[in-house]
């Protein structure tokens, strides 16, 4: 089979990171095409179950992107997300997942370049740690 490429699922809040991703595109900042975004109104909408679900379905990396602290369109959704994410990360690492496989970052709507850079970097990180052990496909090497 062809070379393994990480499958990366991104939950992006509509007000900041989703806009940042749009901006990256309109300025033609490139990042790996294996990064796919699910649009959510706020990182506060992201249930820990979604991240677990993505991983159990074989995603190699899961990324949650929201507004910078203090900039949340819904005042404090990103703080709620941060708390949940910290706890979830402890659970995941306890289960044997590499801590780097899940990541949360604040990327504003004007940080198109930063979005592209972080995606490229996250992709490299996942390439380094290898496929999700839950993957059962032939690509997973």
């Amino acid at each position, binding site marked *: 089979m062809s070379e393994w490429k990480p499958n990366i699922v991104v939950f992006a809040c509509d*007000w900041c990171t989703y806009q940042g*991703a749009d901006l990256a595109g309109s300025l033609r900042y490139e990042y790996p095409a294996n990064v796919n975004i699910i649009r959510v109104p*706020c990182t*506060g*909408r992201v249930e820990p179950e979604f991240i677990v*679900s993505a991983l159990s379905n074989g995603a190699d990396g899961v990324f949650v992107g929201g507004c910078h602290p203090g*900039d949340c*369109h819904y*005042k404090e959704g990103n703080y709620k997300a941060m708390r949940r994410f910290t706890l979830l990360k402890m659970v995941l690492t306890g289960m044997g997942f590499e801590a780097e496989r899940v990541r949360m970052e604040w990327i504003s709507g004007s940080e198109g370049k930063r979005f592209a850079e972080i995606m490229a970097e996250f992709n490299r990180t996942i390439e380094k740690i290898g496929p999700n052990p839950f993957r059962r496909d032939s690509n997973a090497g």
Partner: protein
Amino acid sequence: MPKIGVYLCHCGENIAGAVNIEEVKKHAANLPGVAVVRDYLFICSDPGQDLIKQDIQAGLVNRVVVAACTPRTHEPIFRKTVQDGGLNKYICEMANIRDQGSWAHWRDKEGATEKAKKLVMSAVAKAALLEPLEDRFVNVTKASLVVGAGVAGMFAAMDLANMGYKVYLVDRNPSVGGNMAKLDKTFPTNDCSACILTPVMVQVGTHPNIELLTYSEVESVDGSIGNFKVKIRKKQTYVDWNTCTGCGECIEVCPKKVPNEFNEGMGTRKAIYIEFPQAVPKKAVVDGAHCINCGKRTIGTKPRLHSKTGEPVLAPCEKVCKIGACDRSVAYDPDGELVELEVGTIVVATGFKAMDKTPFKEYSPQSPNVVTALQLERLLSATGPTEGDLKRPSDETKPETVAFISCVGSRDKNHHTYCSKVCCMYMLKQARLIKEKNPGTNVFIFFIDVRAGGKDFEEYYSYCRDLGIRVIRGRVGAVDELAGDRLRVRAYDVDMGSAVELESDLVVLATAIEPAPGLEELGRRLGISCGAEGFLKEVHTKLYPVETAVRGIYIAGCVQGPKDIPDSISQARAASSAAAVPLTLGKVVVEPLISEINQENCSGCGICVPLCPYSAVAMTTVGDKPRAKIDEALCAGCGVCTAACPSRAIKLHGFTAEQIEAQIIALTAGIGGVSYV
């Protein structure tokens, strides 16, 4: 049964140039629930939208996926198409295969195509689970708030007020007028700034529909389009503005001198002051930080009685105030007063601040003869510290040579990368004013290049050249202080290809235009983010230049980026008409993408209640059991409660757990994970 129609947009070459549409089409056709797949050059065009409508009307599709650009700009368009076709408008999902597809991966055609397939698959999976929703309407409070009373804010306020709406015009300074009030003349017509601005200030001050809230700041903003609840902090003036007539006698007798902000730190004002002679409203303010409480007359204390005469000992300012507006016995609250307003829309026009000279160590900022262009503006102005007589600050002699330096802090990666846009023209204007007043003065302008794009600007530039103003193309490396208060400008002349040196009496720095201080914090209060340069961000540079990410809040003038007076006013008037639309309609649509509690599943645990940032969730009793309940009018649709509910009893319409799970499964399809659900 879902019958999903997938519509693939080529967006000319924008998408089709990187994404193999035929391949995506074939892939989409085999997805579960997909009934029709079509592609077209521009789906958002009339014939493109007709494809969707015809398929709906022919009964071929009952759900729609449009794979095109970003839903942030085009979702409303396609929702309307779907509605016009006869379906509920929320039965429409977009796959962002342009902004987050072909544009980002324009060199990786294979990757862009594979990604487009996945994004379509994800959108199809979500579309199959979409539910019809009904729009909500809210009534609009027919009033508007304008923040910032510079030229942009004043014009926005005037337009709204002339349309018949109540306008609250807020400014942090005691007077309206903003930066334009500081200018001497304005390019390209050399109108006297005061002559064209002060009548507008008076109109704003006397308009029956405008309520001025000067010396005030926005403390908090809650609510949303139609019904913003705003708290304004009126700072303490320590003078009764209801009775103060602005006569200025208190100022005459005040002994304490303070650097004059209106004159950009040159000259002094008193601790009790009126911002400038043409101020509107013309009212005195006690600067609490500098007032020395003459005669131990601390604000809010009773005067002591004179030991001999038995008369109360008063401070000079209150002694001369015949009408008692300046009464220091009143126990004023140093925090001022909090005013609560309800408005339907908000226009933000807080303008700019010109950079200070101190960060530019290479240009000898310690020398009084190195001034910023805004300081020079005050030196040229009849209302300035020299009453318009240009003198160099160190010894008040007439400068024989004046050198201007452009792009100080602009187009400079150490400070601001952007062009401040107005500097080229105002330097030419100032040079011209100097030449016209004193034709013998040698005037040199050091430019990186002259940017004179604008109506009548190039002609203005040519005229200045003809006046004998010397334009040197090259960057200035340093300004050194010499004996006799003179300055040496060291630069590189690009045209001569050599280093040049010039001795000058006065050096003018065209410092960059920056966002007004505190803009980031104000943006936070309003829920609008700043761009990388610190100015407030519009929704779309070209299509929606005055709209912000928050519906009902609009921006105008330099708060959005550097611009000149004609542009600021144009934008202000655009913003005022945009802000008037909801007021005129009287009610606005609010998307029904909010959370709802299924009380059958709710266990009454109450976890959601304290999490809601809007206090929209409360406990109630159903039968004899505690249950959570969401107030529809307050819910903003963030989904924080939805994500937290341990019983999954809360549904966020438009972003349900089932829909997002379906997207996750679609995006991870074919890689053989162990699905846990």
